[in-house]
């Protein structure tokens, strides 16, 4: 018996696919912005924060980077309610993404911060800049610029990882694929199409990150 592919059956569910794609984009928009913000704070804490904060962020980074995203998600969504912290699926998924990307970007941005030559910071001190001004203008900007490509790839990786969020019933793109195949039993075709959409999203997201890089660091990012 030969199998007859039927992609039309899946494409007929296009409103679900579009809705799922939009939710995946929403997740990565929230996760990306807040995750990088957390990463910037974490990099500051790890390099020039108080000693206690340094240790806390060190442990946080190691803990998150050495456990799977799926388990972080399950822990937040299924585990936390039993100690009284309730949230919706979407909140849990966003939180998990922020925490996950936060840990990776802390480590990536920290590498950039540590690559800033000491003399630059001393020059800033000579100009009577405050510590915050030094961090913002002398350390952070050049550091971000240096590690922007690595950070961009990490954002794409987290976006692809967000497919796991369908497991706590967040209605993202992979959830749409699951839903469609449960309706028409076209499992292969649904997942094939969803995978294609993810591929396009990944390529687009990389370009968007590049664009943001060019905007934030004009003329200095290699084109």
């Amino acid at each position: 018996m030969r199998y007859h592919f039927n992609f039309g059956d899946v494409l007929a569910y296009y409103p679900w696919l579009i809705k799922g794609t939009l939710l995946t984009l929403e997740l990565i928009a929230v996760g990306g912005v807040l995750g990088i913000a957390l990463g910037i704070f974490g990099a500051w804490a790890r390099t020039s924060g108080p000693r206690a904060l340094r240790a806390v962020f060190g442990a946080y980074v190691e803990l998150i980077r050495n456990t799977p995203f799926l388990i972080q998600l399950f822990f937040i969504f299924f585990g936390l309610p039993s100690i009284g912290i309730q949230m919706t699926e979407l909140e849990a998924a966003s939180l998990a993404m922020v925490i996950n990307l936060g840990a990776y970007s802390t480590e990536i941005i920290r590498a950039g911060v540590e690559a800033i030559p000491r003399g630059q910071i001393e020059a800033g001190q000579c100009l009577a800049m405050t510590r915050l001004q030094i961090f913002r203008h002398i350390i952070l900007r050049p550091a971000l610029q240096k590690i922007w490509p690595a950070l961009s790839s990490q954002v794409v990786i987290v976006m692809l990882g967000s497919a796991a969020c369908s497991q706590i019933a967040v209605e993202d793109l992979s959830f749409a694929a699951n839903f469609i195949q449960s309706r028409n039993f076209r499992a292969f075709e649904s997942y094939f199409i969803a995978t294609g959409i993810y591929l396009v999203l990944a390529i687009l997201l990389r370009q968007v990150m590049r664009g943001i890089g060019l905007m934030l660091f004009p003329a200095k990012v290699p084109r």
Partner: protein
Amino acid sequence: MNDFTLWDMARGLLLAARWTIALSLLAFIGGGAVGIFMLLLRTSRSRVLSLFARLYIELFQGTPLLMQLFITFFGLPLLGVDTTSWGAASLALTLWSSAFLAEIWRGCVDAVPRGQWEASASLAMNYLQQMRHVVLPQALRLAIAPTVGFSVQIIKGTALTSIIGFMEISKAGTIITNATFQPFTVYAMVAALYFILCWPLSRLAKHLERKLYVAHRH
């Protein structure tokens, strides 16, 4: 109804950890073998082969591992192959890790100075001889640290195979949670178990990187 002690939960998870380790090893070895092949294609002088390898890498790096697992799990039966979750999981993870390893190793091959290629070419070596005797031995040194680092990604990747029903730590965690209604404890234990598996490898990768970096700086 039975009461689960902490030890009952831990024992269930530890037994399942054998499968996480087995699957990780298989994916690492299989991914390494396919990865070497893809590396040779990617760095070959033939533009067609190199383009093919680039598309392969882009495809696996640009799509979610979860979707790759689903496609393998539901796609193989269409080709007339009987799929088990074990077979689909090991195939998908092998292909996925091969793409990442090929790309990591390509970076290492690119880091070998151009002159080494030219010198070996002037000794009338062909492409495979150059790779085998001159470039790969040098690239290998650079490759050790990031390869160990990637093995952590493989172990974490195996967690997703629970979704297609492969019985490893995450799946065992879900089952035990359903039996005990103690998600907080169980998932904390699951996370701890992954941490125990991954953290030493992360440390090792960092240590190797530092050692290598010193050697490079002189």
